[in-house]
């Protein structure tokens, strides 16, 4: 598991989630945020990283099929232990990065 990098696993999901949450966030900034999220996932403690990447693999597969994103959103709303933590982790890291680096960002991600 140490050899698996996070970016290919969580990058697509993080990009899609942040694009929905913060639709006005410029593409270049979003790419920077996604890179940050992936670096932090790479640095997680072993067991947590394993769990995040496992869930990430499932959602990457969902993203690859037509209608998969919609299904994924439904799954994420279910009160499933730990699964719901996945988007929360991505959002926590992403939002913290956005507003720390660009504090005048609007609620939809636009550059004020």
């Amino acid at each position, binding site marked *: 598991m140490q050899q698996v990098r996070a970016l290919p696993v969580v990058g697509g999901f993080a990009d899609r989630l942040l694009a929905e949450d913060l639709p006005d966030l410029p593409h270049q900034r979003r790419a920077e945020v996604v890179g940050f999220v992936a670096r932090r996932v790479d640095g997680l403690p072993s*067991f*947590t990283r394993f769990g995040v990447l496992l869930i990430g693999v499932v959602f990457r597969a969902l993203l690859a099929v037509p209608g998969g994103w919609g299904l994924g959103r439904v799954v994420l709303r279910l009160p499933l232990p730990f699964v719901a933590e996945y988007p929360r982790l991505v*959002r926590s*890291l992403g*939002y913290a*990065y*956005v*507003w*720390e680096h660009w*504090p005048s960002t609007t609620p939809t991600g636009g550059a004020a």
Partner: protein
Amino acid sequence: MIARPADAAMDAEVLVIGSGAGGATTAAVLAEAGIDVLVVEEGEWVEQGDTVPFSLDQMDRQYRAGGVTVALGLPSVAYTEGRCAGGGTEVNSGLYWRPPGELLARWREDFRIADFDPAELLSIADEVETVLHVGTDPAGPTAPSEAMRRGADALGWRNGEIPRWMRHDGSGAGQRQSMTRTYLPRAAASGARIVTGCRVDRLELDGDRAVAAHTTLPDGRTGRITFRDVFVCGGAIQSPALLQRSGIRGNIGRSLAVHPTVKLAARFADPLNIPDDVPVHQVKEFAPHLSFGGSASNPGLVALSLLDEWNGFRDAVVDWPRISVYYAAITSQGRGRVFSVPRLRDPIVTYHLTARDRALLRSGLGRLALLMLEAGADTVFPSFRGAPAVRTRKHVATMERLFSANRASVMTVHLCSTVPIGEEAARCGADSFGRVHGATNIHVNDASLLPTAPGVNPQATVMAFAIRNARRFAAGESHG
């Protein structure tokens, strides 16, 4: 900087693993007693001012896993650990609470800590307060602190400014008196060697003795450090994890205690946000079970505090200059575990909140919201999924009804009690001076030893215990 890189092969009379509040004080006491001391620290040495306090950059450089660490459970409890020279003292709020005397007396009885005089520990606390320049801020309270005071006074709740270990110059500017500024230089001045970037993977045992530490260096090379005695001071998560990886069991890692906290963001009419510092007021009306204080509140952390109910709260993020984040912390009856799994580099950490803990978090968040309204907040944004914006007392009742710990962002920064000190065989992992039960030369001297979570910022208590135990060890050395 007084630290240097580690070599693959090293030797010392006493090896101190970790350089935080426990390790730095241990090293200073032993080195000043003439003992050959080697301190190994896994993180890097970061000078104060090289990173912005509470920033993501600081988390990258001075926290374990970038600050993204969690005790698994329902709900999971996010926690942070310092991972740098000076440990948690480099990154925490710097607030100072003496060990509560009545708690020390209770620990002595409940855990059968021998030769333990609370007065001795408080006397050591006096020394620590002098070394760390503990005092109040001559510049007076900041606006977020003042808001806490105002709200508490309006409700008639006991509150006050908490002293900090901060040295102020003539201009009023403060310099944190963390371990890299105090006890580590003292240790080095007395001959202690300090190396950074050196992780201890396990201790090599020969019967009931540890004879060497196996290490990994930054370039991936492995190393070995031989010693006569070892003090494990990696904190309440890493210390038990190292002992377990080394094959030491017993009461190790079974009784993690923390102060779980829940948060809210309070918005006021006028700007009050201070991005790189924390409020120094705390409200202790309901202590020790429940305490209120202020959190770091840079714009990124304000966004985080709104995250759980983003759809409802997100418009407030642009108001971050008028927002400060506050917490309600409880003394928990719950317990957690730290356990190492073969082939996994990091331990698995769990924590279980009891029903009483959940009820206390609920009432704590409600009282904190009330406090903020009384302080003049126009809106309070609680950090849990499904939370309503709170603007009136009636809303506080609604919020309490909707609150569920499982939907809240529960976190903690105070971790302790994973190798409890004392002779109570059923519960204690180390003897009355921190030597691991069943081992002859392995000592623990950090927050792991505290029998329970103390209900206050624990650094002073950790330092006082560490100095006491190190002095006892040094006295034994001088007697042969």
